[in-house]
């Protein structure tokens, strides 16, 4: 059965009518929605449900792409701005470019893949719940406060094409109390945040991250075997309650 496809020209279109059209299409059984001439529209696919729906975004989407989204896949053929994947429940996002600050903020499930680098506070407050297990995969590097308050899920940084080490600013995993980070490249100890600790990188870990790297390579057409064979710095919480010692009564 051929996939039902719809193309929408979003030039000059405000996000509310755009989202209305998207919802209507999904309701109508459309499986692939192509948005052309996107530039800065916020809240695309917010709260959208639909397990086999794909939205292709040609242009730079505005902030909060796929916020609260539950199921669909978004593919962006440009850079993304603030907080794509914000509080997302399930689904996938692929960004063929960079993304801004607070990527995957508070995400509970689903996967976000960014081909290049991201900004500050990537993966902040990501949390897992029962079968929901969020993943953020960054092809390039990140800025400060990566994985701040992380409570669950997996954050993978591949460090491709960066002039410096993949994360060269402070606060890595600051406040982490669940979940784990894997960073390919050197991670100076003084950049680790409060409550974050380096853990051994085992073969089991390597197997754990393999499918995410495969997804990344497939989508972004990358053939770099070293992504699989190189070692990653594994970072997790130093204890389950790293801040208990600060209080008295």
């Amino acid at each position, binding site marked *: 059965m051929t996939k039902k496809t719809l193309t929408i020209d979003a030039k000059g279109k405000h996000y509310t009518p755009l989202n209305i059209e998207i919802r209507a299409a999904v309701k109508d059984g459309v499986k692939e929605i192509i948005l052309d001439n996107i530039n800065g529209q916020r809240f695309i696919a917010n709260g959208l449900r639909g397990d086999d729906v794909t939205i292709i975004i040609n242009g730079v*989407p*505005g902030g909060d792409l796929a916020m609260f989204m539950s199921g669909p896949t978004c593919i962006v053929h440009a850079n993304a701005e603030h907080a794509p994947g914000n509080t997302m429940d399930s689904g996938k996002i692929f960004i063929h470019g960079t993304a*801004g600050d607070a990527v995957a903020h508070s995400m509970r499930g689903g996967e976000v893949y960014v081909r290049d680098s991201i*900004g500050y506070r990537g993966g902040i407050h990501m949390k897992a719940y029962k079968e929901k297990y969020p993943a953020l995969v960054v092809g390039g590097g990140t*800025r400060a406060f990566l994985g701040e308050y992380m409570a669950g899920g997996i954050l993978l940084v591949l460090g491709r094409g960066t002039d410096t080490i993949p994360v060269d600013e402070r606060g890595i995993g600051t406040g982490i109390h669940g979940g784990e980070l894997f960073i390919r490249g050197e991670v100076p100890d*003084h950049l680790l945040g409060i409550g974050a600790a380096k853990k051994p990188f085992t073969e089991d870990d390597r197997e754990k991250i393999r499918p995410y790297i495969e997804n990344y390579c497939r989508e972004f057409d990358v053939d770099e075997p070293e992504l699989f064979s190189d070692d990653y710095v594994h970072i997790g919480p130093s204890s389950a309650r790293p801040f208990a010692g600060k209080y008295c009564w």
Partner: protein
Amino acid sequence: MCGIISVIDRKKNPMDGSAIREALSIMNERGNGEGSGYAVYGAFPEFADYYAIHVFYDNLIEPKTAVEEELEKLGMVKHEEEIPTFEQPNLKKRHIPWRYFFKPNVMALGTTASEEDILVYLMKKVNTTIPGALIYSTGKNIAIFKAAGWPEEVADFYRIQDYEGYIWLSHNRYPTNTAGWWGGAHPFNLLDWTVVHNGEITSYGTNKRYLEGHGYVCTMHTDTEVVAYLTDLLQRQHNLPAELAFKALAPPFWDEIDRMPEKERILYSALRMTYGPAMMNGPFAIVVANSEGIAGITDRIKLRPLVAAEAGDRLYLSSEEAAIRVMEPAPERVWMPRAGEPVIGRII
């Protein structure tokens, strides 16, 4: 909230205001219609050597007479006119904007002062003692257009497409404290400096008092004012190179300074110790311009967005990449500046 976008053509090729109007408008989510503004450098080639003093008048009788008396005492007005405006359905014309092309007399204050001192004195005098008049721009060859309205409304109110220049700054405001007052809209100007700012300065109380001790008066009831004055103090009065002056506003953390090589460590320690009260705290993304260039900087822990882009001779700085792409669909390079690191574009 607020949205900003600015551009410089490093070779001083002129650009008119139509493109920036479009770009600012796509960030209307960041504003609330209570204030927008534009600034352009190179707007008055005919009067390039005169200070283009912009005044908001509540009426054209007492305040105008009083201001013109002051101008007469302090120098010579080459030309003056009401700034042309065009009625907009939703924009209430609360003030009458006027401009004077003015040359100060350096002996006017009794002792030798610089031209800038005269202008600063004039601005202070008018804004604190003449009710119904507000000087909101005192730069040479700089035009500022601002009002309480959405970006498109304000742009059309002044017809900014009729003006050309090599630097444009613009700002879409979401005011919480002084909604509706034209004086509170950005850009803010003092002499050659113009500022647009997204964020809130939590150190305002400290910065303001430091500045007041150095002869500045804060009259605009909004925290952004201090950015223009701090820039003027550090760069013009204290002669700090631009990069260092901006670093004083958003300095490295002490633990980073402690790890620097000795020479740098001493320099940055001295900078923080000497300019502690100039340091700005709170979330901010700021673009400052003067006739030599533009500079963008964010707070040290990156609480506000800023994106930079380059295309040929042009450098863009904005809260959003999408806004830049309205003006420049295919930039050669797009990047996110680091927190606390100034991005500077100078004319060549």
